[in-house]
């Protein structure tokens, strides 16, 4: 079950990382569309915002899996693998799980009403704004799923 969840998260990250390419392209196109073509730059910006929201929502879990989160390792590198594993579990259980659960519950009315109405961008009336609000749920759900994978990992043996 946990292994399947782990594989599913890996596959999702692998697919969502490609959003970076259209994001770069759309944000680049804003300038020529605005100053040269004089058309559709707002549409490029809105679409770029949707890609950005979904990309960064998934990127947090990608960073956890890749181990790139900013951390000061000067003292902790001297700790045993068991201690480090326990610290990671404590951070996940007492920090990430309650936080992600709270975000899911507290944002429920906002996200559900936005999705139900297919909310459009307020400034341009372009469709798809609800996806930005939905990205908050994507982020929280992925953080929860990755935390489950971490908590289920077996305790490592100390190298003594």
């Amino acid at each position, binding site marked *: 079950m946990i292994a399947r969840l782990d594989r599913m998260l890996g596959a999702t990250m692998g697919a969502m990382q490609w959003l970076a390419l259209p*994001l770069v392209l759309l944000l680049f196109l804003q300038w020529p569309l605005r100053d040269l073509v004089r058309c559709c730059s707002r549409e490029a910006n809105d679409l770029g915002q949707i890609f950005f929201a979904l990309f*960064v929502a998934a990127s*947090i879990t990608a960073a956890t899996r890749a181990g*790139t989160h900013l951390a000061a390792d000067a003292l*902790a590198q001297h700790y045993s693998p068991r201690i480090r594993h326990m610290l990671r579990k404590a951070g996940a259980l007492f920090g*990430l799980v309650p*936080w992600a659960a709270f975000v899911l519950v507290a944002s429920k009315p906002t996200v559900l009403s936005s999705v139900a109405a297919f909310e459009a961008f307020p400034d341009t009336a372009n469709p798809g704004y609800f996806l930005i609000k939905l990205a*908050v749920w994507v982020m929280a759900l992925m953080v929860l799923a990755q935390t489950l994978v971490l908590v289920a990992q077996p305790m490592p043996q100390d190298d003594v």
Partner: protein
Amino acid sequence: MEWTGVVLLVLVGAGIAGTGLPAAVVLITAATLGALLGVASGTIPPAVLSALPGRLINLFENDLLQALPLYVTMGLLLDRLPVADALYRACNSLLPRSSGAPLASGMVLGALLGPMNGSVGASVLGLSRVMSPRLSADGVPAATRDAAVAVASTLGVLVPPSLVLILLSDAMLSAHTVAVTQTGRSDRVINTQDIFHAALVPAGICFVVCVVIAWIVGSRIKRSHSAASVNWQQGLLAGFSLAALLLLLGGVAAGYFYAVEAAAMGATALLLAGFVSRRLTFPVLRSLLHDVMAITGALFFLLVAATTFTLVLRLLGIDHLVDNLVGGIPGGDAGAVAVVLAVVGMCAFVLDAFEIIFVIVPILIPPLLVRVADARWVSVLLLLTLQSSFLLPPFGYALMMVRGAAKDPSPFRPFVRALMPFLAAQWLLLAAVLAIPALVHVGERASDLTRTPEKALTPEEIDRQLRDMVPLPELEPPR
């Protein structure tokens, strides 16, 4: 409960330094603890915490934050394409033949690539890879080599439009908005462009001074090998890259396009260069995008965690406490700024620039700006403090990164000795900007002013300022 916020801040510092957990996890855990304490004691009404999702949605739709993945993409592409190496070799061969040229070239490379690399950590890794082997081959001692890489890596903090500068601009905009609202002043709230312009002169001075010091230090070294040569392809690549970089940096500084657009242009150009040169094969691209996502996620999670943490601190009433503390600092504007900068400098022992910008700036800077109206001056002083604190022995972030990245790190004492001339120059510059605020207002027009004039303007002055802001069309010559 105001002091609970301070205790939480100390806990965060201790947690980051002592547990080795990601800073974002420590911040979220501290926020959870603070929220529980606040709700249990009745200080925080539970309903108020539901403001959090709204704040998170604001992050997802923030235009400026779109720069994050773009800068990360650029930095990683620069690392994978031979641009940095070509720039370093070309600069080395253009400078007069001297032992000082390799170190000075390293500084130039740091200033050019630093703003694109995203963070000090990324700059250290990139510059270590390009500079260290070349300097080593040129007979530069390990201590001087490591010091040069550390200093060059921090030049990007100050040179517009670096990611640090963009994110600080966003934080300063919020802080200034709070201060202007609270005081009722009719100042214009500063924006990214204001801070770019304000940083230009101090950044230029810092760059020139570092290059000169590197040249002098390098000139005293007996070289054991000839300089790395540059072939025509590398020269062409360096020339094209330099032109593109200067075009982007200049375009943003001059206001022709936004920082996000410039970053997107740079990333698109580098992607195209990678495809055309066939260096960006499918496996390389996939690995690049994996890294882009992982590094972007690290920065964004920090921002999400800091947003959660600062919300809880505010609800616990830390704003009032900091307001009173900053308001009670003696010594006028300069005294208040100096004390706040010292606190920021101390935070830099355990926090990265991004952590300081996301966590410390929103708490400390609004009350400072209530007292000190010149937001441009405060912004540049903050940047200089951040830059200098990265190099502060023994725990400066850049120092630790350089020593971690080096294959055989130099002994600590010679390393610190090699750093001292650069550090002394940065402190002098910091003192100069603190003493002479005009350094951040060079070339400022009336339309750029953010502060309300202290004395009433004459009708002629108002007329002149209006003409500056809205240039009148040329009159047609009489026929």
